[in-house]
């Protein structure tokens, strides 16, 4: 027994080092469990507060840019509204109240921290559980898909951006409705990779990809990106398609969180299938 203590004492430096490393790797591995709320993330109070106050200053610098973006978006929405009115006016039939058919509602949030240079990138938003944010909500910008909510605290939430090894989003080619999976190969913040689209499908450069209605996270038809190049690996039945993200991650400012009002109903129904 005494010898053990002497041994431990003599090698205390190495042992302490090993203990610390083990602790670090426990943190690392725990964090990798999807959706696990962790204290050590930028949605916690202290770091959230600091990022927010720095952002307060940054806002002024990008004021012009974000104004322009908002105006653009307003115009787009205005057009949409006019079109819709026309459609409604064209109809002779009775127009019923369609509010009960609403499926999605949106919460707006501001990006207060963002990274694009790492292998696994995250965003921090200034909305949390107090504002109705829940894990696994989709995040979109006015230009397209951004990511999926991971952790939520009272006032902040962290988002797994598309620029993350773990983010996989179901997308389809807008013109032909063939669907595949979008992931990030991990080098360029503008380029993503779409796989699992069978090779008999005709595609060309510049084709638009949007989200599908297969997941409960994003509404159908949100822009994801455009095809830059594509090829089929020898012996493979599927394309690997390089796409340019429609969202530019390097200057994200305001985003919208998607709340699917009928999510529970759908998940419940689909779970019945699995159980049988």
């Amino acid at each position, binding site marked *: 027994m005494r010898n053990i203590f002497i041994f431990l004492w003599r090698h205390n430096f190495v042992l*302490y080092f090993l203990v*610390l490393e083990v602790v670090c790797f426990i943190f690392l591995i725990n964090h990798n469990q999807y959706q696990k709320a962790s204290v050590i993330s930028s949605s916690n109070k202290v770091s959230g507060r600091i990022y927010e106050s*720095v952002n307060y200053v940054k806002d002024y610098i990008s004021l012009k840019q974000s104004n322009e973006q908002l105006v653009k978006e307003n115009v787009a929405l205005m057009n949409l509204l006019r079109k819709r009115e026309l459609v409604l006016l064209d109809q002779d039939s009775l127009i019923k109240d369609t509010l009960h058919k609403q499926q999605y509602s949106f919460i707006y949030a501001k990006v207060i921290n963002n990274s694009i*240079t790492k292998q696994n990138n995250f965003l921090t938003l200034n909305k949390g559980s107090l504002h109705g944010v829940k894990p696994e909500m989709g995040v979109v910008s006015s230009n397209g898909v951004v990511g999926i909510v991971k952790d939520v605290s009272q006032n902040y939430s962290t988002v797994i951006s598309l620029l993350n090894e773990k983010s996989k989003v179901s997308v389809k080619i807008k013109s032909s409705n063939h669907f595949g999976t979008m992931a990030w190969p991990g080098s360029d913040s503008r380029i993503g990779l779409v796989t699992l689209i069978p090779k008999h499908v005709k595609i060309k450069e510049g084709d638009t990809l949007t989200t599908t209605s297969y997941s409960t996270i994003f509404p159908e038809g949100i822009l994801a990106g455009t095809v830059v190049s594509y090829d089929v690996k020898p012996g493979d039945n599927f394309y690997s398609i390089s796409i340019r993200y429609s969202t530019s991650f390097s200057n994200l400012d305001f985003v919208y969180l998607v709340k699917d009002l009928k999510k529970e109903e759908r998940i419940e129904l689909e779970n019945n299938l699995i159980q049988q």
Partner: protein
Amino acid sequence: MINQVVILSLRFILLVLLQVLILNNIELSGYINPYLYILFILLLPVQMSGLMVLSLAFVLGLVIDVFSNTPGMHAAASVITAFVRPTWLKMIAPRDGYESDAVPGIQNFTLTWFLLYASILILVHHLALFYIEVFRFSNFFQTLFRVFSSSIATLLLVILSLLFLNKAKEKR
């Protein structure tokens, strides 16, 4: 003694803020991410006990982790750096050893000595950090390139901040 604690804590806070608020936002062609916060470990006194250096490195890494959403990653890399430091200090010791209150820097040591001292420790830190980050060896050379380019950037920043600190001291 108390003076030293104050200086160290100020340096700690300053480096952490500099890292998470400014340097983490710098992207140069996706390959260069300088991690200047490691300067804190480089500038700890030579005679400080190994356990103390390990603990400080752990806390430093963890604080950086909290801000960058990577629990354990920076902590692991910093602790490895702190672990290598005493051995490396012993290997490059001047002929008549270190003075009892020696602090690594470019004032008390030659520039070549400091470059040698800092470059290896920065390299160790970046190697650990970038390979833990990707967690596989499939893009081995791409990662290695990132390690080297970022190490050079960090080393430049380290030298710059030391020159800056020295200037400030002379003025006083």
